[in-house]
Structures are given as structure tokens and as C-alpha cells.
């Protein structure tokens, strides 16, 4: 048991360890860090899918009369929906738009143009596109994911008002996806000083209270799979944990969102709350293909019910990607991003000690 080991070790008469206290937390909410404000989409918030599909039909060359023939009234006419389900064109023939987004006409969806976005200055260079963090007022913030997705209805929200997509995703996954654990080790959490931050995946999914909130003090086994084991060095200052050097984060996730959650050049600020919880922002560069697959694998159901125009999202992600250029094409493979997490204290044990199925 790793939580509050310090007192136990002391009472047991052990020699004072280099790390005096360890606390483990389970992530109980995880989403893109969003800060949607009125007016942050100068071109307007992108339309709902029924209107977007009509626009797409125009872009494909259909006339007003042809589009009118698809039908009117509430909801999506089946004929329009069928057209959209195969709206990619390869050699002039219909094709799946989610597998072949580049064979779909770019709907040129609107993106955010605003002063604020959560995150960090990842590249050390403030530019005209950089944001200011609304909480810390750090400038030069790189968060092109917020720009790319921020004018899509289901991705708009704030830390308190959860965006539809991320709320949906978390609701889908929290009772099935193995939980993520954060373990902090420090000489004294009440003082400023060094801290080791370890991210792992558990073998169990998140345990919840009867009201659906994450349950504190539950026990988890740490998955020994090295792919989800991350050790980062940082420090505590005023109860806020940040990294000494940008690191890398890699956790197995779920293909419903992305099979793997990968961030490079990671920065973070995680706050130890008086109630014993841990919450905050993590930023870094993320492969945008991982995110696109999470949207595209759901196909038209996902597009109509959750995300909005998926090939449109493809073009947004591709356009605003800002790191890891392909040496040949120059196309960036990663996009700067910021995520928000909340976690509650739990117990964790090395999974090798037990075998139960």
C-alpha cells in the first residue's frame, strides 16, 4: 500500500527512506481543457450536423433543387444521410469518408481565434497564434487542439461545464477502461521541494460511489505492463506540482477515444487540494492521428450523435497540427494540447502480489 506510507514506515521503525511519503490517486475525470467564450469563433460556431450535411452536399456539387429533393422537416432525411455516409470520392466513385477523409471535400470548418486557452508554452516561442492561460496568465501558450476543435459544438465548454464529447467519452469509459493512477512521492507534501510523479494504469476500472462520483480510498492493482508506466521528476511549490523538465507520457487508453494517450514535451500543473484530491492541467504534443481515429472509428453514428463532421475534424486537426513535421512532406504529425484531470486518493498495490480474476 503506497498511500501515506510515511507514518507507517516510521512507526515500524524502518530507516528513514529517501522518499518519506507516497500518495496515490485515481483519475476520476479526464477531458480536454476547454475555455470556450462568447465570440471566440469569429466565423461562428460550426453548424449542427443536419445543416452541415446540406452544406457538404453543396460542396459536392449538388444543386439546390437536388438537395431540396432529399426532403425537408426535422431530422436527417435518409437519402441525405446515405449520401453523406459515402461522400468520399475515389476515382469518381463513392467511398467511406471516415476511412478516406482526404477524399472528401474540405468543409473548411471554423476554428477558434481568441486570447485565452489553457495550457503551457511548449515551444518556448511566443507567436501571434499563441494563447494566454486564463488561470496562470502565462503567455505563449501552445494549444492548437483547443483552436482546432473549439468551434465544434460538442467540444465547447469549460472546466466546470463539461464539453459534450468529453462527458460522453468519460461516461462510456469510466466503468470499463482500466483506471489511470498517479502516484506522488515526496519528502514532505506540506513544504516546497522535489516530487516524483508516476503515472500507471490499473488492472481495475474506476470504482464509483452510488452517485457516480469516483470513490476515494478504493484499492487498485498496478498493471505491470511497461507501456503505461511513466516516471517524471518535478517539484512542489505552494501546493502545485510541476515538472523540472518536459517529459513524455504514454498510457494505454481505449480506442473509443484513442487506443493510446501519448504526449511529448509534457508540462503540468497539478494542485493538491485541501480535501486530499489532486487536479490540474497537463499539456504536451499529441499525435493527431490518434484523436482522429477515435472520432472516425465510430463512423456516421458518432458523427451525427456526438462529434459533428468527422472529415471536417480531420482537416482541422491536420491544418492546426504544430509539431513533429514529416521530413518529406512537412506535414506536422502532432498537435499541441492541454488536458484537465481530477483525481481522488486511493490505495495501490503491485499487481504481481496477487492473482485474482
Amino acid at each position, binding site marked *: 500500500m503506497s498511500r501515506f506510507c510515511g507514518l507507517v514506515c516510521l512507526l515500524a521503525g524502518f530507516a528513514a527512506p529517501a522518499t518519506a511519503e507516497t500518495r496515490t490517486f485515481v483519475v476520476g475525470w479526464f477531458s480536454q481543457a476547454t475555455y470556450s467564450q462568447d465570440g471566440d469563433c469569429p466565423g461562428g460556431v460550426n453548424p449542427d450536423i443536419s445543416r452541415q450535411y446540406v452544406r457538404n452536399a453543396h460542396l459536392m456539387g449538388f444543386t439546390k433543387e437536388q438537395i431540396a429533393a432529399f426532403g425537408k422537416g426535422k431530422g436527417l432525411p435518409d437519402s441525405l444521410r446515405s449520401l453523406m455516409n459515402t461522400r468520399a470520392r475515389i476515382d469518381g466513385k463513392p467511398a467511406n469518408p471516415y*476511412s478516406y477523409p482526404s477524399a472528401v471535400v474540405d468543409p473548411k470548418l471554423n476554428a477558434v481565434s481568441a486570447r485565452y486557452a489553457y495550457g503551457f508554452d511548449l515551444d518556448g516561442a511566443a507567436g501571434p497564434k499563441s494563447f494566454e492561460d486564463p488561470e496562470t496568465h502565462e503567455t505563449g501558450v501552445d494549444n492548437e487542439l483547443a483552436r482546432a476543435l473549439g468551434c465544434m459544438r460538442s467540444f465547447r465548454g469549460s472546466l466546470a461545464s463539461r464539453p459534450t464529447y468529453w462527458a460522453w467519452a468519460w461516461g462510456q469509459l469510466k466503468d470499463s477502461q482500466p483506471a489511470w493512477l498517479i502516484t506522488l512521492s515526496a519528502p514532505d507534501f506540506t513544504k516546497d521541494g522535489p516530487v516524483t510523479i508516476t503515472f500507471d494504469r490499473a488492472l481495475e476500472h474506476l470504482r464509483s460511489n452510488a452517485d457516480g462520483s469516483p470513490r476515494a480510498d478504493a484499492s487498485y492493482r498496478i*498493471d505491470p*505492463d511497461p507501456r503505461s508506466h511513466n516516471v517524471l521528476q518535478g517539484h512542489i511549490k505552494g501546493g502545485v506540482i510541476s515538472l523540472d523538465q518536459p517529459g513524455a507520457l504514454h498510457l494505454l487508453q481505449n*480506442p473509443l477515444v484513442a487506443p493510446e494517450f501519448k504526449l511529448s514535451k509534457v508540462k503540468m500543473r497539478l494542485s493538491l487540494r485541501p480535501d486530499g484530491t489532486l487536479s490540474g492541467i497537463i499539456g504536451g504534443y499529441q499525435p493527431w492521428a490518434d484523436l*482522429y481515429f477515435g472520432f472516425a*472509428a465510430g463512423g*456516421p453514428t458518432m458523427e451525427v450523435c456526438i462529434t459533428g463532421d468527422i472529415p471536417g475534424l480531420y482537416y482541422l486537426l491536420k491544418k492546426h497540427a504544430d509539431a513533429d513535421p514529416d521530413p518529406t512532406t512537412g506535414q506536422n504529425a502532432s498537435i499541441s494540447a492541454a488536458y484537465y484531470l481530477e483525481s481522488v486518493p486511493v490505495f495501490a498495490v503491485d499487481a504481481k502480489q496477487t492473482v485474482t480474476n
Partner: protein
Amino acid sequence: MSRGAIFLMTAMRILLQLTGAAVLILSGVPVFASETLTPPGITLQVLGKGQGYDLGKQSAAALPRDRIAFADARGMTLYTHRNDPPGKSACTDACAKSWLPAVAPTDAQTGGAWSVVTRADGKRQWAYKDKPLYTYVKDVDPGSVGGNSPARFGARRKNGAGVFVGGGIRGAGAKGGAAEAPLPADWKVALAYPVTDIRMPAGFAVKEVADAAAFALVDWRGRTLYALDEPLPAPALDCQRPCAWQPAAAPQLAEAMGDFFVVGRDDGIKQWAYKGRALYTFAGDLAPGDANGTGAHPKLAVAAVAPLFMPAGVTLRRSLNQGYVLTTAQGMTLYRRDGYIFQSGGGHSLHRGQPPRPAVGRDIGTDAHCEGQCASEWHPLAAPADARPQGFWDVATRPDGTKQWVYQGYALWTYDGDKKPGDLNGNDTFMYAFSDLPHMHGAKAPLDFGTPMDGAPALYWAIAIP
């Protein structure tokens, strides 16, 4: 603490004691049958939707395995003819053009229920329980019955005869499947499962216990039964109290039936025995199909009435959190290459992931569709040059002429990233397929493995579960 809780804790304690190395090697001692259910060259095929063509978002998690047929080495369903007298084929001339005798090789391994009959033309034909076996000329896919391809349950695709069947969303497929043609009169599928020829008291059944690689006896709750490897009257079970092994209790007025007997115990309980072996359940089995008691007691083994074939060099091992997985003899995890299907509700992460779909595995074949580092890290599970399909196992020929073991449609692989027995470090490694990715350049029909996935597809590596 309740008695049940004590039993459960005891069972778990036994598991913990036995799993210092994090895995249990499946001993799988067959108590009632020394031979596997199928000889070399005879395979098992799940019929109908169990082949996995129907990949609707809900049905994918519950593939029915309620009918498993004997099949030939190609996976074609085997039939018997009502008019055949025991040990002889009456299907000749025109009949034999529609119903092809299942030819037995000269070295066919007979024994048990399996024999060979000699036809009038001198050809050797497999027989099961003295009934000659045939394939049907209209069957074109594994899992077919009476010429009805299970492919009709899935996406619009070509069946084994090159005819488009099925419906689906991707592309412009037709909706729905063709009507099912009836099986011609006097012909029956040679079913391996359900097992119907064992007389059993009420409450007992024979079920597929995949974790023990067997069709085995289960009790009225569906819990796996274990048999004591001691002849009756059996000595008291050597089991530390509270004992995790519970006698399969018989009603006080129960009477013998078939091979089932009732045994009086010193504690007054009447206990069922089968073929002279006392039967028990294990408190560590929490759900039907569990076989967690395997290896937990030196004298108790799953009451397997029909052990299933496993190749030499392959075994079942308990993994840390995914139940039993197929492994090499050295304990290294075996994997399958599978096609992803969208799972609303995050079902992909659930215990043991998605169930295997043999039709998808066959579509993927031995080409893992991975290059570079991927190709260098994944290795086919080699089969001997003379290996034959048997039971749920098939043998694929790779492009270089070598053989690869295939289990329930999926070619099997090992992963270099697994460093020690029990590692599952390759599980859930994905490769997406959409047009902007480097490996997709020039591909026009990527990874569309006969599935009705309406979104972007992907391949991934998954643990091979029994």
C-alpha cells in the same frame, strides 16, 4: 463471515499460493477420456453467427456457440445420412455427387468413436460412431449448413464460392441476408456440441469449458465440475479447512442414472460421482466457464468428457488479469491479429476484450499487415511441416512455405516485447487505417476484412484466448 465467503477466500488463498510466478500451468488431466475429441484431419467449426460475420455493435460481444459441428480439414461441415447402415455408406452415384464422402487418409487415426469405412469404389471414408461422414457440395464457407453460408449474416462480401452475400453499411451493400435453404431430408449435421448422448440426472449438463480446453460436466448453476482421480470408494479429500472444494451434492432420494452414481459420505452428504469418480465444484469459479480450480489440487481435474486438441508446444496459462491465455510451452503469450470494431460503452476494454470471430481471422490470414519494426517484433507460431488441422486448430501455409498454427480462424504470433512468461505487453497494440497515414498510401480497399464497420477500420494485436 458467511460460509460462502470463507470458501471463496480459501479458494483465492489457494490461487495465491499457487501463483507465485503469476501464472498457473493448466494440467488438464482428462479423467474420462484419454483421446481428444477429434483425430488429425477432423476439425470443429462453430455454426451460424458464431463465425463472427455479424458484427453489429451489440451482437459482437455475444457470439453464440450453441452448435459446434465436426468438419473436414478445410472447415467444411460434416453430415450423416439417415439411410446409411452402421459402418457402411449407401450414398452412391447421384447422391455422392452432392454429398461428398469425407475421405480418410491411409494413416487415419481411428479409435474411440472414429473409424474408417471402405466404400464400394474402394475409397476410405471417415465415420463417427459408425455413421459415414460427408460434406455437402453447396457448402462454401466454414460454419455453413445445408449450403447456407454464415457470411449472409454479415457485411456484403463474397462467400467461399465468390458469390456476394450479406448486407452491411460500408459501401453500397444490400441490407439483410438471403432466406435460409432447408437441409435436405434424411441428412443431419454431425454435431460435436451440444453433447446429447450422455444420460444425466436433472441439473447436469455438458458445456464447452474453453479454459480447460474441453467439453466438461457442469452443475445446475453452470459451474464447472471437477472429478477426483481416485476410484470409489474415494478417500476423504485432502483439503485444508475451510475447503474450497465442495462435493457435488445429490438429493437424498437421488438414484443412479447412466454413468452417474450417488456416493454416501461420512459427513452424511450424498455426492454425485461420474464413471466412478466423485465430483466437486471449486469455490474460486465465479462464473460459468471458469476453470480456476485447474492445478489447485493434485487429485482433482476438470470433469472433461471430451478433451479438445491442443498442439504440442501450446498450453493454457492463467494470466494476471485476463484469465487463461494461450501460450507457448515456455509460457510466452500468444496473440492474434484482429480487426477492430467500434464498441459503444468502451466494451473493448472489458475483461478479455473482444471475443474471437473466426471469419475475421480467416480474412486476415497470415499477413499481419505490419511492416518495419512491427514486422520484426512479431513472429508466427511455427507449426511442424507435417502438422494437420485438428479440432479448433488449423494450419496455414505462409508465403515462404513454412507452416503457422491457426486457432479458431486466427493465425497465432509471439511478440518480442514480452520478456518473460505472463507478459501481455503486445495486447491492444493498434494500427489505424485511414487515407492520410504513410502505410495507407496507394491503398484503395484498406483492411476491410469482411466486417460491416461503418467507421475507419484498424487492426490490433489481441491476446489469444481459448
